[in-house]
């Protein structure tokens, strides 16, 4: 039995259906309305420039000012769409669990603050909205605060969020100081003139802050704790929309406002992305908690997005604007696709958890017959997450690979070394990601139930199904006709100095890359695959019918050993075991084998207990020593607080003497 970082599941029996609570319906409706408003605002901002809104009296000294740019518009559409699906879903979800009023009221507020962050056009507004978003989401994460694991997750989340906020605060304050204005558009015009050390400092600080929100390694440690701990609609919004807000920060500040920078900026973004992608996907492949698997998959996808942005910056620096265009397009499309399939996956996972009371894949299974809609929805989400053709994530991955392979030889040694490594990283991420998603879907939904909770599952409430179907429809549209987001992508590219190429990729039935010989038609591929599969199935049926061939439902072949029990099915742990062995050095599982011998003789065994725990290696190797060192240092400082008034007066006298000496 594998326990991934000791995460306790929800209570073993599914919750009984409680009386329909009006609070859930109101909260869900409010979320849907806010989301729809966000979508409308975003679409309007993409198609034409919107007027700015400034309310001088709302905040002392600075006031709030909102202006939705084209970039913000794209992310607003994404946030709004996720909110609509999650809001509809939450109507049914929160009826099952006894939910506090706090959580119900917080969900629409959360979406509102995110839209506020995206619409902010001055630094103060951005910071205020950011902090509000962090506080409101913290309340949402802590909705189940009776469990110790949830409280622990809340602590980590609060700590990392404040750390990120601090970094963003300092970075943006430095930027404002050097630019002389608070408005983001004015700063964008003046940032090029700032001294390079200032720009470097701002880049590092804001990348750390926004990267922590996006879940890039090594600042990701809150993600696998907070996303599973929150209720599923909140997880969906956090994982699909809030990390996108982090990416928005990176795009807006580090790419658009700061403008083209030295080469090492691009390398930092690319390296952080590659590390996040690999680490996230490896942890996802060995995770047995369904929501933790999806959380690590978020880290992986954000890593791929960062790789796209970094590759775009690097290629632009080397003077390949067209290819840089393609890379940034790939990153943005990946954000949109990730929002669709990750929200769908989290909503389906929440549906499973609500129906079975189980979050551990090792105890799920056999849900395809009892919960067909949920199964199909999770299958669509998993297909998108794996980056396979017919999935929502395929086109963005294809675009990213095209941008990586089209740097010309002779451009420079750095490109010649970095691009193959980047392609290798993307490929390994895809491969292991496919294994992780196949594990999640195959073990969690197919075959027979592995626990009584899974055996008693039944399909979710209609509102939950409607929410999931909306997200699934978005996945299907993105998989077959990504042209719908083309205007939005173009509006973002036109505002990004690194990616103003000659022409952006042409999205139609055939996706054509300008200036590069490359084309793809996801619709034609999907149609051909479906037609070919149906043709083969039809031909088999016809060929079989002409001779004697009747179907018969039979027992499974067990080598004559008798009927199978559910203990004999492959679990998620056993499925991932070969991969875990290969990447043993990175994952460092803690394996413990305890053998109980028969009392009379040490040669006879009564029982064997095997325990394998995979914790987040970054947390263990980086954070624990750092926190331990911090605690030791704080202990030294504590010794100075001895309680003696004479000592404190002496401290004051010494400090006064120092100030007098320095200030003279």
């Amino acid at each position: 039995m594998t326990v991934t970082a000791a995460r306790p599941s929800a209570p073993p029996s599914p919750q009984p259906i409680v009386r329909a609570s009006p609070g859930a319906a109101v909260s869900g409706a409010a979320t849907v309305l806010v989301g729809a408003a966000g979508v409308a605002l975003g679409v309007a901002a993409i198609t034409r420039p919107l007027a700015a809104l400034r309310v001088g009296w709302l905040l002392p000294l600075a006031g709030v000012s909102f202006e939705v740019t084209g970039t913000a518009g794209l992310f607003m559409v994404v946030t709004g769409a996720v909110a609509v699906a999650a809001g509809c879903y939450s109507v049914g979800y929160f009826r099952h669990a006894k939910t506090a009023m706090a959580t119900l009221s917080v969900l629409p507020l959360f979406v509102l603050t995110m839209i506020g962050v995206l619409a902010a056009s001055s630094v103060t507004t951005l910071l205020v909205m950011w902090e509000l978003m962090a506080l409101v989401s913290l309340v949402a994460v802590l909705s189940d605060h009776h469990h110790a694991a949830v409280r622990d997750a809340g602590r980590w989340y609060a700590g990392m969020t404040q750390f990120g906020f601090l970094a963003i605060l300092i970075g943006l304050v430095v930027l404002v100081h050097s630019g002389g204005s608070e408005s983001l558009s004015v700063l964008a015009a003046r940032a090029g003139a700032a001294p390079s050390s200032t720009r470097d400092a701002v880049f590092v600080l804001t990348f750390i802050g926004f990267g922590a929100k996006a879940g890039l390694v090594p600042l990701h440690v809150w993600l696998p704790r907070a996303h599973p701990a929150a209720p599923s609609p909140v997880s969906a919004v956090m994982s699909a929309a809030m990390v996108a807000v982090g990416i928005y920060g990176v795009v807006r500040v580090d790419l658009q406002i700061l403008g083209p920078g030295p080469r090492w900026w691009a390398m930092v973004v690319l390296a952080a992305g590659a590390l996040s992608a690999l680490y996230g996907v490896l942890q996802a492949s060995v995770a047995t908690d369904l929501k933790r698997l999806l959380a690590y998959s978020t880290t992986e996808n954000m890593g791929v997005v960062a790789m796209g942005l970094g590759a775009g910056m690097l290629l632009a620096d080397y003077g390949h604007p067209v290819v840089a265009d393609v890379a940034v397009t790939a990153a943005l499309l990946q954000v949109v696709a990730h929002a669709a399939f990750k929200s769908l996956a989290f909503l389906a996972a929440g549906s499973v958890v609500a129906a079975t009371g189980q979050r551990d894949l090792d105890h799920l299974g056999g849900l395809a017959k009892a919960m067909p809609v949920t199964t199909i929805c999770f299958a669509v989400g998993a297909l998108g997450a794996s980056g396979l053709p017919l999935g929502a994530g395929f086109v963005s991955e294809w675009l990213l690979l095209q941008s990586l392979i089209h740097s010309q030889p002779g451009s420079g040694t750095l490109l010649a070394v970095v691009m193959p490594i980047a392609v290798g990283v993307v490929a390994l991420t895809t491969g292991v990601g496919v294994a992780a998603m196949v594990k999640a879907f195959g073990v969690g939904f197919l075959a027979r139930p592995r626990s009584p909770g899974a055996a008693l599952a039944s399909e979710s409430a209609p509102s939950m199904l409607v929410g999931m179907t909306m997200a699934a429809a978005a996945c299907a549209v993105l998989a077959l006709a990504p042209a719908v987001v083309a205007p939005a992508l173009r509006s973002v590219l036109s505002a990004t100095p690194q990616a103003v190429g000659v022409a952006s990729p042409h999205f139609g039935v055939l996706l054509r890359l300008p200036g590069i010989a490359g084309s793809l038609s996801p619709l034609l591929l999907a149609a051909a695959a479906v037609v070919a599969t149906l043709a083969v199935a039809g031909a088999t049926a016809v060929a079989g019918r002409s001779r004697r061939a009747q179907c018969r439902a039979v027992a499974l072949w067990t080598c004559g050993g008798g009927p199978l029990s559910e203990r004999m099915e492959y679990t998620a742990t056993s499925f991932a075991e070969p991969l875990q062995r290969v990447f043993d050095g990175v994952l460092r599982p803690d394996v413990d084998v305890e053998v109980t011998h028969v009392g009379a003789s040490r040669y006879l065994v009564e029982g064997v207990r095997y325990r394998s725990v995979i914790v987040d290696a970054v947390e263990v190797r980086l954070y624990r020593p750092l926190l331990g060192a911090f605690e030791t240092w704080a202990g030294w400082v504590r010794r100075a607080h001895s309680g003696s008034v004479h000592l404190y007066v002496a401290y004051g006298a010494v400090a006064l003497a120092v100030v007098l000496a320095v200030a003279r």
Partner: protein
Amino acid sequence: MRGLIAKMWRTGRVAEPEPALPARARLGGVSQGSLQLRHVDAGSCNGCEIELSGCFSPVYDAERYGTRLVASPRHADGLVVTGVVTRNMASALRDTWAAVAEPKVVVALGDCACDGGVFTDAYGVIGPASSVVPVAVEVRGCPPSPTEIIAGLRTLSGR
């Protein structure tokens, strides 16, 4: 590897020439020339197994007649049962027979599988293969030689 190539060159073809085709047997309505069998040892002394593996060795090469031993009964057209059916293997034999898709046959290989052989009245024995599954072809002998086994298999494969 060079030594192996030289050995292949020197050895050449080891398979003995094909004997004449025996009298054909019908296998339901299935086309001739392809026979996949799943071997089940119901309680044999392994003498028949050695002869059966000799059938598929390069000298006798039963695969040239379209027969093949397969791992899963679902992939098979029938079973090759060796040995008398012991109590412990009775249910396993029945499960294996149930797992084969129609049309299917059973080949009883060796005297033990055909009529109990030397183990007829032993304890722990249920009987010959026919007491548990319907036998279509019997190959007698203790153990039968590969030539006799192949003659029996060819009545089913028709090649």
